């Protein structure tokens, strides 16, 4: 099997880097999980805050690598033209990878305050805010890479066919770049700082990233099911309409207790209560398209990832988000392990899984075959179940810890102090950590599936194949 367009090949290093950084993210997650129960583990070599920065920043960076790889892969095919500049894509890959690596080395090698001093944080103070911990040069690097990337993708779309999938992807990517600019706004007033910090964080993950998610999912479903493009693109528009109409005002669910006016409790509760709807629509969309498929695509693993994304995004982002989004509930659960539970399953279910969906679909083709061998696919599907089920357990244990935490610290008549409560949650933290080990095993199986020996195989389109569910 040949690539339709040679320039699609630039996606390959992006996908490989994404998976490599994913491994780093999980290793640091395991360190963090252990520090929750063995408080002085690796202290002072790697304090909790450092490991957490590495864990969350690697997540963001590997997802961005995945999104960029997805764009480089699907835009030439959608626009039916070669990428504007494959060379630029290669150069940006190395800039982004080296900048990311240097940032992580900086986090680990020197105290954060020293890093801030060394990298000119006093010129423009942007560091030290959750998820936006990157030094100024890294942040500027992200802007440069994002702009050059958008130029490359934009020029390609401009000269080629303009499909809804590529336009929605482009809107998502432009939104991603534009909203990141708020990372440079950091007033001394903590309330204003927080208010606009959410314009990066919330409007990314519950806004424009969902456009990227929808476009990638739509593309893969189009390819593996052979369903009419008109149907898929109409679904996509409906999903992203629901996403933005609920998600933009839904930002208000972060404005309940940070100093913003009380009316945000109404706006935030009502609109964010609608946020599960687009995710539910996405689940229905995935199953509907697969059920109406006009061909049996030999890549069953990719189909499984696509369906899994639909289900897990709905559970993690939709259901676990709804659990604590209403203001009267959030009053008690805000900033507890409930939040952590939601964060884990939402990021995995929506974004990690959609990146693995496009990798699962595109990587075999990038390696010269329509689908991997039966054995490699079976291994990949094993890794799907290991990672997904263990993430469900991580979420359930954190939710249990969160309920207990909220009860002991915030609900009962004689509330207990934070650390006193934490000590009583140790059992759940241990079980979460063990689930994390299983997740890591799943990740190892996932990577091994790329190297599993091929057996010669002929798959004819049209022969009955077991469905990936």
């Amino acid at each position: 099997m040949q690539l339709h367009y040679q320039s699609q090949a630039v996606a390959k290093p992006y996908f490989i880097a994404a998976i490599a950084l994913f491994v780093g993210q999980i290793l640091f997650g395991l360190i963090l999980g252990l520090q929750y129960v063995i408080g002085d583990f690796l202290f002072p070599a790697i304090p909790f805050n450092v490991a957490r920065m590495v864990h969350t920043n690697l997540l963001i960076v590997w997802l961005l690598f995945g999104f960029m790889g997805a764009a480089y892969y699907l835009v030439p095919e959608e626009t039916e033209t070669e990428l504007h500049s494959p060379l630029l894509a290669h150069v940006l890959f190395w800039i982004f990878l080296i900048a990311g690596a240097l940032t992580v080395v900086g986090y680990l090698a020197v105290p954060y305050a020293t890093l801030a001093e060394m990298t000119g944080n006093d010129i423009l103070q942007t560091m030290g805010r959750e998820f936006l911990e990157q030094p100024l040069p890294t942040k500027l690097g992200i802007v440069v890479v994002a702009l050059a990337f958008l130029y490359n993708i934009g020029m390609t779309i401009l000269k080629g066919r303009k499909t809804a999938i590529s336009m929605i992807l482009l809107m998502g990517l432009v939104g991603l770049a534009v909203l990141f600019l708020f990372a440079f706004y950091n007033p001394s007033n903590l309330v204003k700082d927080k208010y606009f910090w959410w314009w990066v964080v919330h409007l990314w993950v519950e806004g424009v990233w969902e456009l990227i998610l929808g476009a990638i999912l739509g593309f893969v479903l189009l390819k593996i099911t052979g369903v009419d493009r008109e149907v898929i693109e109409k679904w996509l528009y409906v999903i992203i309409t629901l996403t933005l109409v609920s998600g933009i005002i839904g930002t208000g669910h972060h404005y309940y207790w940070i100093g913003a006016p009380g009316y945000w409790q109404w706006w935030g509760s009502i609109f964010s209560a609608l946020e599960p709807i687009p995710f539910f629509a996405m689940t229905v969309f995935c199953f509907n398209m697969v059920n109406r498929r006009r061909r049996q695509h030999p890549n069953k693993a990719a189909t499984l990832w696509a369906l899994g994304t639909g289900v897990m995004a709905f559970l993690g982002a939709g259901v676990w988000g709804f659990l604590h989004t209403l203001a009267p509930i959030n009053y008690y659960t805000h900033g507890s392990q409930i939040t952590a539970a939601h964060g884990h399953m939402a990021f995995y279910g929506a974004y990690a899984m959609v990146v693995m969906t496009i990798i699962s679909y595109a990587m075999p083709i990038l390696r010269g075959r329509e689908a991997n061998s039966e054995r490699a696919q079976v291994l990949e599907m094993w890794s799907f179940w290991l990672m997904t089920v263990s993430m469900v357990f991580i979420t359930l244990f954190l939710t249990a810890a969160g309920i207990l935490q909220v009860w002991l610290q915030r609900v009962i008549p004689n509330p207990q102090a934070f650390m006193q409560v934490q000590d009583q949650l140790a059992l759940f933290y241990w079980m979460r950590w063990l689930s994390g080990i299983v997740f890591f095993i799943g990740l190892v199986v996932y990577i091994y599936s790329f190297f599993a020996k091929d057996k010669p195989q002929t798959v004819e389109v049209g022969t009955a194949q077991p469905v990936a569910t």
Partner: protein
Amino acid sequence: MSAFFTKSMARNVFYGGTLFSVLLFLALTFHTTWKLPQRDHRENLTPEVARGKHLWETRNCVGCHTILGEGAYFAPELGNVYKRRGAAFIKVWIQAQPTKVPGRRQMPQFHFTDQQLDDLVAFLKWTSEIDTENWPPNIEG
């Protein structure tokens, strides 16, 4: 979806709905920005408070603690720590770190000067006076 609801209709609904949401969000943001001075008491935002926030950021405190419920969930909420512990306790506590109690969660030693400790306390005091709609539910945060 039935045939009378076409892709171009879906696209138009998307653009219309998004535009409406963005405008509504901007209007609410404008109103919030106008109301904020009564809620954040910015008249008390002294240079000490600003320096304290800078220390808060460059020591990555939010990597373990929450402040007004946002941050990491590894260490106690500090939005109301000024009310919970008071200035003297906060300073002594920071200076006494790490406790080095085996198996306990550890906080690094930051070698703050007296001036820096005062700045941090000023920041935490100012933060504790923000109108947070009575959050957290009790003093334990």
